[in-house]
C-alpha cells in the first residue's frame, strides 16, 4: 500500500465510525428522550396519552393513598392544575406530601398518569431544579431557597 492509500484507509475508517455514531445519536435523540411537563403544561400543550413523559410538581397535601399491595396513588400539582398518579412499587426515601416530585410514565387517557418511576429529592428547602423552575414559571411563589447538597452532586 502506498502512503496515500494508507491515509485513505485511516480517514475512511474515521469517517465511517463517526458517521455511524452520528446516525445512532440522531436516532436515539428522536426516540429515547423524555420531555418534562408540569400538570398545566399537559393541559396546555395537549400531551398525547401513551407518550412517555416526566411529570413534575408538588405532591398535593393529603392526596397520598396507599392501596392494596404496593400500589400508591397521589396527586401532582403545580397549584394551578393537578393530575392523579398511580404508581406500583416502593417510593423513594424523600417522597413526602407537599414536596417536589418527578414521575416518569404515560398518561392513561382518562386524565390520570401511570408512573413507573418516581424520583424525589429533598431536604427542608431543596427542590428539584426542574420543578422549581417550572413552578416559578407558572407564577408559584416558592419562598424557599435552593440549597446545594444532593447525592452524587458532591462528586466532582
Amino acid at each position: 500500500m502506498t502512503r496515500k492509500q494508507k491515509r485513505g484507509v485511516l480517514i475512511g475508517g474515521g469517517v465511517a465510525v463517526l458517521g455511524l455514531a452520528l446516525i445512532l445519536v440522531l436516532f436515539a435523540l428522536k426516540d429515547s428522550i423524555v420531555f418534562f411537563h408540569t400538570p398545566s403544561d399537559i393541559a396546555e400543550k395537549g400531551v398525547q396519552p401513551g407518550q412517555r413523559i416526566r411529570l413534575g410538581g408538588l405532591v398535593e397535601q393529603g392526596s397520598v393513598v396507599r392501596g392494596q399491595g404496593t400500589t400508591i396513588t397521589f396527586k401532582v400539582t403545580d397549584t394551578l392544575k393537578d393530575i392523579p398518579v398511580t404508581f406500583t412499587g416502593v417510593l423513594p426515601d424523600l417522597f413526602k406530601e407537599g414536596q417536589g416530585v418527578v414521575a416518569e410514565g404515560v398518561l392513561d387517557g382518562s386524565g390520570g398518569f401511570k408512573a413507573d418511576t418516581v424520583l424525589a429529592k429533598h431536604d427542608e428547602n431543596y427542590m428539584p431544579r426542574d420543578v422549581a423552575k417550572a413552578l416559578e414559571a407558572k407564577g408559584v411563589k416558592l419562598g424557599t431557597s435552593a440549597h446545594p447538597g444532593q447525592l452524587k452532586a458532591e462528586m466532582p
Partner: protein
Amino acid sequence: MIVELGHFALILALLVAVVQVVVPMFGAAVRDERMMRVAEPAALSQFLLIALAFLALMHAYVTSDFSVLNVAENSHSTKPLIYKMAGVWGNHEGSMLLWVLILALFGAAVAVFGNNLPPTLKARVLSVQASIAVAFLLFSLLTSNPFLRLDPAPSDGRGLNPILQDPALAFHPPFLYTGYVGFSIAFSFAIAALIEGRIDAAWARWVRPWTLAAWMFLTIGIAMGSWWAYYELGWGGWWFWDPVENASFMPWLAGTALLHSALVMEKREALKIWTVLLAILTFSLSLMGTFIVRSGVLTSVHSFAVDPARGVFILAILVLFTGGGLALFALRAKDMQAGGLFQPISREGSLVLNNLLLVTAAATVLVGTLYPMALEGLTGEKISVGPPFFNMTFGPLMIPLLIALPVGPLLAWKRGDFLGAMQRLSFAFLAALVTIVAAFAVEHRGPWLAPFGIALGVYVMAGAIIEWANRVKVGSASFEEVARRATNLPRSAYGTLFAHFGIGMLVVGIIATSAYREEHILAMKPGEKVAVGGFEVTFTGVERGRGPNYTEDIADFAVTRDGSPVTRLQPAKRLYDAPPQPTTEAGIHASWRGDLYVVIGDAQPGGGYAVRAYFNPLVRFIWLGALIMFLGGGISLSDRRLRIGAPSRTRQALPVPAE
C-alpha cells in the same frame, strides 16, 4: 486562628503559583537556568501551602468550629469522626480545595521525580501546571472560599447529607480527583511540548506513567462511586448515566485512548500529533466535568442550584485552557514531524481503531450529557436523556472495540498477520461458543442477545490470557522455559493482562446483571415468604434501633436455599437527626452466583411493609473487573522501564487524610 492561617496559606499559594507560572516560563525562553530552577521549590511550596490550608479546614471540621460558615453548613457535632474528616470534601468549597490540592500534588511530584526531564521542558511543564493552579485558586478564593467566618456562630451545624455518610462515598472523591485532576499533567506536558516545538518518543515515555497513574485512580474512583450507588440508593442499579457520572466517565474514555496512543508514540514514534491533541482533550473533558458538576447547570435528579457566578467562572477557565490549548495546537502542530509508517492491519492500526472508537464513544456521551442543557438554554424545553439514549449510542460502539481488543496485541508492529492472530485466538472463540451454549442452557429468560454479550466478555478475558500465554510460549516450550519467560516478562505486560482481563469481567457482569436481573416488588407481612433467585426469603419482622446519629427501623429476613439456612438479611430505613432525612440501607447477600438484594419501603396499613427484593446475577464482576483493571495499572506502573520518566512512587505520595 488556625482557620485564618489556612486562609492565608491559600492566598500565599496563589502568589507562589503566579511566580511559578511567570519565572520558569520566561527562564526557559531566555535559557536562564536559575530562573528555570525556580519552578521546583515553587511547586513544592505551593503544594505545602495548599496542604496547610487543607489541614486547617480539616481541623475546623474535626473540632466542629461552627464559626466557619462552611463547617456550620455541612457538619454537625454528633457526626462520627470519620465523616467529620470526609465532610471536608463533602461540599462544594471543600471539594474545590481538594481539587487544587491534588493539582499541586501532581505538580510537586513532577518537580521531585522528573529529574531526567530536559530542564526547559520541566520548567515549562511546571509553569503550565501552575497556570491551572492560579485559575482554580482564584476560583476558590473569589467564589468558593471555605474559610469564611460566620458571626454569630450557630450552636450546631446543619449536618452532612446522610446519603453521603458512608465509607465508600466518603473516600471515593480523593481517588476520583486523583484520576481526573491527574490528567492535568498530560495537558501540561502537551502544552509545554507545543511551546518547545519538539516532540518525540521520549516525551511519550515521560507522559505515560502520569497518565497511567491518573487513569488507574479514575478507574477505581468511578467503580467506588458505582458501588456506593448500588448499595446506598436502594434500587439496586449500579450506573445511571447521570450527568455527574458521565462527567467522570468522559475523561476516563479519553484517558484510556490517550494511554494507548502514547504507547504507539513511545514504541513507534507514530501518532505524535494525535497524542498531543488527545492529551489536551482529555484534560478538557476533566474541566468540562468540573463545570458540569460544580456550576449548577445540571437538570437531573442529582442537580443542585448554586449561584451563577461560579458557573461563569469555571466556564471561563474551561474556555481559556481548552481554547488556548487548541489554538496553540493549531499554530504549532503543523511544524511537527509525522512519525513512523504502518499498514492498517498492524498493532498501530488496531490502536488507531481503539482510539477512534473510544473518542467517538466519549463524544456520544458528551452529546447525551450536554444536549438537554443546550436545549433548555435555547428553547426552554426540558427533556431528560436517560439510559435508552446511551444504550443505543454508546453500546454499539463498544461491540467492535471489544471484538478487536484481543486481536490488537497479537498483531506485530508495522505489519501484522491477521490470520495468524485469528488462529491464536481459536481458544478464545471456542470459549465464547461454549459460553453461548451454556448461557442458553442455563437461562431461558432475557433477551436472546444477552448470551452473545456474555460470550463477548469471556472472549476478551480468554484473549487476554492467550496474549500472555503466547508471550511466555505456553505449549511450545518446556515448563522451565515458560517459567523463566513468565518471570522475565516485563511488568507492563502483566499490567495489560490484568487490565484487559478486567474489562472482560466487567462486560460479563454488566450483561448478565442487566439481562437476567430478577425483581420482586410486594407487600409482606411478618411470616410471609418470597422466592428470589433460587433463595427463599422469609420476612420475620421489624425492630427499632438507634445508631450514633440516627434512628432506624431494621427489618429481619431469613434466607434459605433448598431448605437449609443461608443467612439473615437486615435492610433498614434510617432517619438521621441532622439534617432529618431518611435513607434506605439495603440488605445484601453476596455470592459468586450473584447478589440477593432486599430493601424495605413504607409500612402498609395492617402491619405489612413494602418490600423490594432483587437477584442481580454476577453483579460483583463489575467492580471486581474494575479492581483488576486498577491493579493492572499499578503493576504496570511498577515496571522499571516506566520508572525512567516518573517513578511509581507517585502512588505513595497520595493525599492521606491527616488526623
